[in-house]
């Protein structure tokens, strides 16, 4: 980000910030968990911060709406940030966001494992059908290193290798 672009952002943000000081007060207090999350997850991507931030903001939004619709002034903002329930709301929402961030990988992993199992079952059934139709001679054992070598050696000439490739791509 070059300096001219930073300057441009500052030109836009500073007046808006000055106009929305009560909102900024609330946000600065309410969004602390988001900042902590960004700091904790540095180097692991921004997903932790974004998740916690989104939930944190969701928890803050009712108080912000009160602020905006019932009087956008500093005393109202101070009233919010001194309200223990508001704090519970901000930090509870952030905690829920953290919980989402922590649990979804496990859920997705379990789902993916289940899907792979189904695919293996399907392919085993397909292999059984092949053996039933063509006899046991059709069977082969995949050996990663050997298979890779064989593929490399025969890829230029062997029709069977081409067909294997095609079959692997699901063309047959």
């Amino acid at each position, binding site marked *: 980000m070059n300096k001219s672009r930073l300057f441009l952002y500052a030109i836009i943000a500073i007046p808006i910030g000055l106009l929305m000081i009560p909102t900024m007060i609330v946000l600065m207090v309410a969004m602390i968990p988001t900042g902590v999350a960004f700091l904790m997850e540095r180097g692991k*991507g921004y*997903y*932790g911060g*974004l*998740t*916690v*931030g*989104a*939930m944190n*903001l*969701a*928890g803050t*939004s*009712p108080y912000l*709406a009160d602020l*905006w*619709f019932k009087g956008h002034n500093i005393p109202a903002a101070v009233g919010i940030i001194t309200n223990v329930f508001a704090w519970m709301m901000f930090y509870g929402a952030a905690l829920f*966001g953290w919980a*989402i*961030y922590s*649990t*979804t*990988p*496990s*859920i*997705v*992993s379990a789902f*993916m*494992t289940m899907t*792979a199992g189904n*695919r*293996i079952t399907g*392919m*085993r059934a*397909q*292999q059984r059908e*092949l*053996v*039933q*139709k*063509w*006899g046991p*001679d*059709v*069977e*082969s*054992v*995949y050996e*990663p290193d050997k*298979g890779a070598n064989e593929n490399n050696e025969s890829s230029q000439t062997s*029709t*069977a*290798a081409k*067909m*294997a*490739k*095609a*079959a*692997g791509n699901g063309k*047959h």
Partner: protein
Amino acid sequence: MAEAAADLRPSPEPVRPAPKPVLAGVPAADPPAADTTEPAPAAAPQPTPGSGGSFIVVRDRFTIFCDRPIPSLDMPNALAFEVADRKQEGRPLYALVCKPEMPARISVMRALKGLEIPAVLHMVDWGVAEWPPVDRKCVIVIYHRPLGGRVMESMSGQFKRIPDHLFARSVIKPIADGLVELGQKGIAHRAIRPDNLYYMDEQRTKMVLGDCVTAVPGNDQPVVLETIESGSCTPSARGSGTYADDMYAFGASVLMLAIGRNPMQGVPDIEIIRRKIQTGSYGALVGDERMPVSLIECLRGMLTDDPDQRWAATNIDLWLNGKRLTPIQAKGESQAQRPFRFAEQEFHSIRPLSYAMYQHWDKASQVINDGSLEVWIRRGHELNDLADGIATAIKSTGAMAGNKADADDVIVARVLMMLDQRMPIRWRDFRVFVEGFGQALAVAMLRKQKLQPFTDFINRELWRHWVLAQTKHLPDNQQYENVFKDLKNYLRDPNSGAGIERCVYELNEWQPCMSPLIEAQYVMEVKGVLPALESVSKTANTKLWPVDRHVAAFLRARYAKGTGTQIDSMNDSRPDRATIGMLSVLAIVQRRLGPELLHGLAMWVGGLMWPVINSYQNRNKSKELEKEIPKLIRKGSLAELFIYLDNPEERQKDAEGFAWAKAEYAAAEKQIYDLEHGQMDRQDSAIKTGRQAGTVVATVIMFLTILVTLVAKLL
């Protein structure tokens, strides 16, 4: 009558009167129909109750009575039976049923059938027919029955000698004329002996030569009636012989007729030959006997040992016309002044020594290898070429690789060939003329004898040594070269359609197929193979291939153009291709030569098609074949079965489909492997995806919350 249809049924009641007893000198043969007490020559069929016995009918004309043998007319290799001619009742006929273990002279039968040659027993017909007593097909020859019986009952017997004055016109002239006529047709009789001469009439005035087709040429001839060379040979290996051989046998027979007995009765064969070599055939046979003066000249002429000087029909004519001829004296053997001592005997000439060396084979090897024989020939006979030849034989054979005993045998055989070129090739107990090799092989094979000497003969190229030893160039020599070169190649080839089996069929034009499967069917022609296999299909071991080594060799020899490629494919190492090859052999023969329907054989062959069915990778196709083959079998067409099973498009489709399936399996296997072994990757991916999903969910919740809050405030 070849392959004549024959049927077996109960014998009718006697249709003709019992034959009259023959004349003196011949036992009263031809027992009446009811007299069946005489032992049957073979496993005679049981007479059907209420009838006269069993019989076969050939050509719808000749009724041959299986239970009415005529032992007095038996031949050494054929048994005689009564025959009735349905067209000419009362015609005196008899049948000779050939023994299966001796090849018959089919080509001579074809030439003689129906011919009426003076002084030769008239062959009315011949053919192959089912012979119930031995439960197989046999060659049957039908002859005019000689009413006067045999001239001499047996070679060991005595008989009333023929008066001198009858010899010239009643015996010598007609038979010599008959031999001339046979010679003009290219036939040597080779069975002239006193017990094979017959009187056609009851008065015993008309003498004829008997059967000559029921055994290979010269096989039944006693040594005393054969020339020195032929007598030295194994009987079955004497070759087709020549007119000169017939004249010799005729001369010896006349001599016996003149004496009234066999002058050499009881003398061992070896001694007979030794005496003939020593004193000449005439001298040996006559010995101390008193010969009719009128016959001496003729007998000397016919018994001359040199075949070039032996009397022919012209000489006999001149002699009969009163022109007295003196047989040219055979050129005497070269005599060495210094004798050669061998096997406790002293020899001055080469031929007797050669014969003695053959008799003492192991001692012969010693005198050859120590050089004493060579020296004696060089110094005693001054035959430097012969001595050089012996030296060369020792050197060249000794230098050959192999065991010493074998090399010594080859050296002795080669030296004997050089010492006496006219003699058969002698290889220890194996004595054979090159010309008679094929017949001897056929006989040995039929008699299940050892075939090692025959393979040795070919592999060791004894025939070539014999050809090289001949000082006289024979036109057949080049032919021998070509023939034996082929035979050697057949022996080298271990596949079906080659081997010793091929040799025997190549060498014997009319040799029936000797396959154990169809041997009893006496199949001489290719078109007879399939019907024969069809007829045995119900009883044969159907696990065996119908095309065994003999059938393959027979087809290859007789029908090479039609079956060569198929037989080659039959030898394929892949079982399915070999089985298809076997089917193709049969299919092509059926398509080209018939018959159209072969249900039994089709069922047999269909049951052997498992390798072909299993060769299809596609199980569904295999099941389809299993269902379809029985339908094709029921059609009885091997050609259709072959076309269905050997469909190249189907095979290509199967092969390609299999390759696809294999590739598909491998691809699936790889994916499964990847799925099973990609746990770590999947974990990383799951974390990444889970976090993304969490973010999305949180964002969605955020927007929904803001939206709901704003909407609530605005409302």
